[in-house]
């Protein structure tokens, strides 16, 4: 499934251009970060993709089929999670998801199968009989995600899914999104927490004032890792680090070191094993983040809406 946003323009009252000739694309298995300052046009773009809004011009296609011309087909392919959370006193979690399963055209036993499946996947099984307003924000986010997933869409559009979540809920959401990406879904996700986006996204699209900025953050093949050893070893670690296979570069950083190595969990585990084999056991070993933050700050500098 290839999602293509082409020359999208959306103007609101008094000529305010929320989205200005925006184009980008992504495919199945990709998790794309959608980044921009407040008022950049992220939510408007996502709402148009979900057919909740109409562009002035431009188009969005799913494998070449226009979302605007064939909204019924698009609805079956797209799952949208808005930043607005469900909150009703008269609807339980199970009823809410059940309604959307029916609304997406599921019939008979498939309804229960889908509802129980997404409840299980999002960890809502123990909360299915609670009314929506009695849930915490994190649980409401899960309900919203379950609702977006109930018809097993090929494309997921998640608008600020981690907004206001506690650290545990964020980590759990990140794992869910990663799992969905690995399952072959095309995911567009917007967030202000750039370090988290960087961890789960294969690339990012940065927009400002409705326009795409010419900086695309691709997942790098190399990564810097922060290291620190016991004081007795720390001072003399540089030569051993440079000789260790898999280390591309090493340099001092604060009271420790940073080494450049191949990205990925396997490469990190291999490096850790090799360092241990050389009696260089680290007390700190973590990948450096913040690349997306740096780029974001650089490209949007002085142009905040």
């Amino acid at each position, binding site marked *: 499934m290839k999602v293509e946003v082409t020359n999208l323009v959306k103007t609101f009252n008094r000529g305010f251009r929320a989205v200005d000739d925006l184009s980008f694309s992504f495919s199945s298995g990709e998790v794309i970060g959608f980044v921009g300052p407040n008022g950049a046009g992220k939510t408007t773009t996502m*709402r148009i993709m*979900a*057919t*909740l809004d*109409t562009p*002035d*011009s431009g*188009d969005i*296609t799913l494998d*070449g*089929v*226009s979302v*605007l*011309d064939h*909204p*019924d087909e698009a*609805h*079956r392919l*797209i799952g*949208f999670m*808005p*930043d*607005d*959370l*469900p*909150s*009703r*006193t*008269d*609807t339980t979690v199970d*009823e809410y998801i059940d*309604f*959307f399963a*029916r*609304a*997406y*055209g599921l*019939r008979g036993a498939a309804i229960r199968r889908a509802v129980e499946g997404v409840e299980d996947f999002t960890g809502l099984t123990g909360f299915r009989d609670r009314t929506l307003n009695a849930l915490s924000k994190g649980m409401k986010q899960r309900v*919203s995600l379950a*609702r977006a997933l109930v*018809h097993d869409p090929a494309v997921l559009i998640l608008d600020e899914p981690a907004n206001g979540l506690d650290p545990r809920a964020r980590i759990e959401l990140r794992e869910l999104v990663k799992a969905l990406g690995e399952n072959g879904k095309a995911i567009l996700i917007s967030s202000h927490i750039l370090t988290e986006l960087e961890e789960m996204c294969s690339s990012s699209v940065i927009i400002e004032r409705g326009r795409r900025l010419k900086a695309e953050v691709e997942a790098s093949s190399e990564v810097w890792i922060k290291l620190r050893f016991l004081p007795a070893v720390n001072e003399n670690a540089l030569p051993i680090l440079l000789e260790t296979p898999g280390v591309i570069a090493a340099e001092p950083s604060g009271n420790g070191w940073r080494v450049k190595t191949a990205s990925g969990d396997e490469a990190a585990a291999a490096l850790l094993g090799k360092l241990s084999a050389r009696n260089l056991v680290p007390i700190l070993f973590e990948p450096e983040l913040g690349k997306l933050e740096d780029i974001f700050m650089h490209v949007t500098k002085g142009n905040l809406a």
Partner: protein
Amino acid sequence: MKLKLQINPVTLKELRQLVRSRIILWGMVALPIVLLIAMIVVLSDDMHGMSPMEVMYGNSLGEGPLNVTTLITAIVTCGLIPLFTCIKTMIETSRTNERLEFTTALTSSQIASGKIAAAAIISAIAVALAMPFFALSYLMRGIELSTTVAIPVLLLLGGTATTALGLLPACSRRSIVWKILLLILLGVAVWLFSAIVVAVMNIGNSGVHEIVASILLSLAGAFAAIFLPVATTAYCRAQAAAELAPPHTDFNRPLRITQLVVFAASVPLVFAADEEESMLWGIAWIAIAGMIALCAGFSPTPVTRGAILHSPRSKILRVLAFPFATGSVPSMVFAILLATAAAAVMALRTYITLDFDYAKKIIVFMYECGAVAIAAGALARMSLAGNARIANVIGKIGLAYIVIVNLFIFLAEVHVVSEEALALVPCYLFGVVQMFEVHVPIAVAMGVGAVVLLFCAAGIDFTRWWKAPTRASNGNVNEDKLVWRQH
């Protein structure tokens, strides 16, 4: 073959929410209690001074209980339940999360129907709770069984129609002014139709049982009584669905077809009613046409890409389908055709019977309002389509024309009714003038002007409509050919 009945998911959801609502729950509990108290009060009043034998075998006491049961049940079915549904819908349509049902496989028609059906089911429960009291009214004598059965049915139909009418502004994404205007114009049309129904059934100051009895007695009466709520429900459901639909889709087509069907179905009323009341029919349809023209004129959207995509293959059919397409210009063309059709039916009726000056004046006035709306809409559409300079010049000429023409009418009126001229100013401002003879050519001139402007604006949209590649034309739309811009 196994028949699979699938309940509308919206109905199911609405019902779940309605039965959990404390207002509805307490309303249902309170209804029989209130009915019981009201029945005791009415009967104790009616039985005052009667002997037990008179109560048992003598006077017919059913009318009072029937009236009070009908009134209280009507308040619930035609007041509280529609009001609750509309407020709930209004809140829903204002929240992003609640609008998510529009991203599902549900159509806007299914959403509107689901809400109306849920309210109808709750109304049916309310009517069922009132049934013992209707039965008691029958047992108190003086009421026919058919009347006792017909009233709950009519209450149910009336409640459903009221819900549909109220759902219209609740579903609309227009401004509050437009919502009120829409409701007033449709309300006026329904009220006018009600007047015809009353006239057809000849039930001026009758009680409930007499009204229902007269409905049951005459075929025309039964038709009129059922036509009104059913037509209102169908019309409002189609309009609500159009209001809920995504803006780029071809949402007007089902609405226009419904309007045409309701129009055709209402034609017998003209011939069933007396001459004077039949004029109400014409005025009602001119009001509806004016409403369509106003809404289209002041929201100058182009023919939507959904409409272009679904345009017919045959060029002849494409021309015929243009007034049914979604867009401001096709809507204005449809309004003109509808008004013309209404005028034609009225002309036929008038030819058969008499000529009414008053009705002609009102119809001419409505034509003028429609002409101004159409002219304004056509200019706005031209302006948005990139012909701003031409639209500006034509707009100024049109404005000058209207000012001069109206000044001329005013002076003529002062000349004819000099002593009343000042008192007539407020009426004049709303276009109600005494000099009908002067007004007719002016109205015709304004109509011609509006049609010319509409023709200019239609040229822009119709060309796109005529040339556009369609899904119907090639079986499967070629996305590369469908280059689409808003203006």
